[in-house]
């Protein structure tokens, strides 16, 4: 008899605790207890809308993106959304025969991206009419800046001297413009991405980078003499190294096109710029990133860095032999 009573007692003691523990496993409860007090009203008003979303969240997202894309096929640029963070694209450019072509096809790509702000910085003494007109005709939301690279920094002719990174001064000017235009306290969320005018970008890339909280990274094709370079991501979803052959021990062995930074981070670290002098080949990106973030803070995108969404294409320099010394074609015609 007492034995049974003991058993009953033990069961009665253990049962509620096991049930409690299984329930407590749902970690949603602890933050809920703190958040409930503030968002209670909002929670209730949205509960009808959000109730259905919990399960099919990802599906809805995909549906929405799909529908929006086909909707704006014939109306460009895509409508501005109040909800999405703005993507600020910083593109340095310089005059050469293929410039208009490159900017044209880059604009054709960017016209598909919602909430995009294109910051085009020319390497020139004055803003050229070619670029001004092109920007106006696209209908994009843009900012046109210019700064000339001093003669002793410029690349001589065609030789690619890696000690003189191209576009640095222009990118720094764009960063300064951002810091002068937006204040740290502004609530406007934004992402900053450095997009060179000859690369190729998939539309998926821009949606991946939109969720950047500090600095996000992903693979880039055709850099470092490889099919693609990518960050090494461990099973916990953290970056711990770089899958490259060219100097993998750089602090950030990544190409300019392989990362995006949250605007707030840029604004909160006003001293962070690309280093101008004494930068070894391939270290330009590190010179900025090491002021902003550490390796463990990086956010891997593109399915944990397994998909290639941006290609470091380079356009051949066109052979203009038949132009001769005086120029065969009418120089008034813009190309």
């Amino acid at each position, binding site marked *: 008899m007492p034995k049974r009573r003991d058993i009953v007692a033990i069961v009665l003691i253990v049962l509620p605790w096991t*049930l*409690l523990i299984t329930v407590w496993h*749902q970690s949603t409860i602890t933050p809920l207890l703190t958040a409930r007090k503030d968002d209670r009203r*909002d929670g209730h008003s949205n509960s009808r809308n959000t109730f259905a979303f919990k399960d099919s969240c990802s599906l809805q997202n995909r549906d929405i993106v799909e529908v*929006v894309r086909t909707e704006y096929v014939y109306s460009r640029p895509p409508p501005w959304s109040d909800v999405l963070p703005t993507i600020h694209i910083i593109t340095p450019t310089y005059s050469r025969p293929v410039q208009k*072509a490159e900017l044209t096809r880059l604009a054709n790509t960017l016209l598909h991206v919602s909430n995009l702000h294109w910051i085009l910085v020319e390497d020139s003494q004055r803003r050229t009419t070619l670029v001004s007109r092109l920007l106006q005709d696209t209908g994009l939301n843009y900012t046109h800046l210019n700064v000339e690279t001093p003669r002793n920094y410029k690349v001589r002719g065609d030789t690619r001297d890696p000690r003189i990174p191209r576009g640095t001064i222009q990118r720094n000017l764009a960063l300064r413009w951002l810091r002068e235009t937006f204040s740290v306290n502004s609530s406007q969320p934004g992402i900053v991405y450095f997009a060179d005018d000859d690369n190729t970008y998939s539309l998926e890339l821009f949606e991946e980078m939109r969720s950047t909280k500090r600095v996000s990274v992903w693979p880039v094709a055709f850099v470092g003499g490889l099919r693609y370079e990518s960050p090494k991501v461990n099973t916990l979803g953290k970056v711990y190294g770089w899958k490259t052959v060219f100097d993998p021990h750089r602090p950030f062995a990544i190409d300019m096109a392989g990362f995006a930074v949250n605007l707030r981070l840029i604004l909160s670290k006003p001293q962070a710029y690309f280093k101008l002098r004494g930068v070894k080949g391939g270290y330009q990106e590190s010179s900025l990133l090491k002021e902003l973030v550490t390796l463990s803070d990086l956010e891997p995108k593109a399915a944990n860095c397994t998909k290639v969404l941006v290609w470091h294409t380079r356009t051949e320099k066109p052979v203009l032999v038949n132009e001769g010394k005086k120029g065969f074609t009418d120089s008034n015609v813009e190309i």
Partner: protein
Amino acid sequence: MATRMKLKLKTVFVLYFMVSLLGLVYALMQLGQRCDCTDHDLPKDRIISRLRGELHRLQEQMRKSEATKQPQKQPAKPSPPTIFVITPTYARLVQKAELTRLAQTFLHVAQLHWIVVEDSPHKTPLVSELLAKSGLAYTHLHMPTAKDRKLQEGDPSWLKPRGVEQRNEGLRWLREDRRAQPGGDNQQGVVYFADDDNTYSLQIFEEMRSTQRVSVWPVGLVGGMKYERPVVEAGKVVRFHTGWRPSRPFPMDMAGFAVSLKLVLANPEACFDGEAPMGFLESSFLQGLVTMDELEPKADNCSKVLVWHTRTEKPKMKREEALQAQGLGSDPAVEV
């Protein structure tokens, strides 16, 4: 003493039991209100619900604009003529990148039908998936080039004509497809040959839409010059401004002309001649279709450059090749 201890134990037990029961009941109450648990996801869900609202708004706008257009459009205004773009493509490292940015351009053009012809014995999954995800109206074909006509590694690009079989296959499909659907409306259209590495502005497609027979315009960065163009006098093409072999019947690049669908269908024998000497590929096709004075000049009497013959560099793969020799090459499963 024993009884008091016993009593104490009993109250302790009872108290403990009550407390744990209350805790459990509280937790179960939380469980019951599962919906509000999504509060911790609030920002995401808020965004989603707002996006949804915007989506509804945009759909309403579209429906409204269509509704207002409908009564005006009652007098049977035909849809703009479809532009059939024939693009030959072949597998190489930059293929996916080239097709991606080409698709991004085409997405802006209304009534465009993309005919992609692969130089391959069968359709590759890379191109199939790209086309399916592009959101464009497309036809996916394939036609391998005969081995002796194919460029080998290290051959300069001008050695053998490229894309001939593929363009002819595109024409063949178009002719067959239109024959199967008789009717005046289906003869409306424009055929344009767009290589996958060129750059196209959006204006060029609007310029070519009004083609009656064959229309022409300047092409940038081709023929060893900044641009090549037809010279127009009094609205007619009188000669061609080109630095290379101007004596050709039609000394222009593939990207510099478009043919009306009607003309293509009316001349079922017209196709590209792979045996033609270098630079005569375009002429071999156009000779049978039109004479020089019948050409329609576009792009502001051929004074504006709206398409560029850009070429993409072959990416340097020395390190990749070195790694592959060691068996440490990059994951081939990752599509580039």
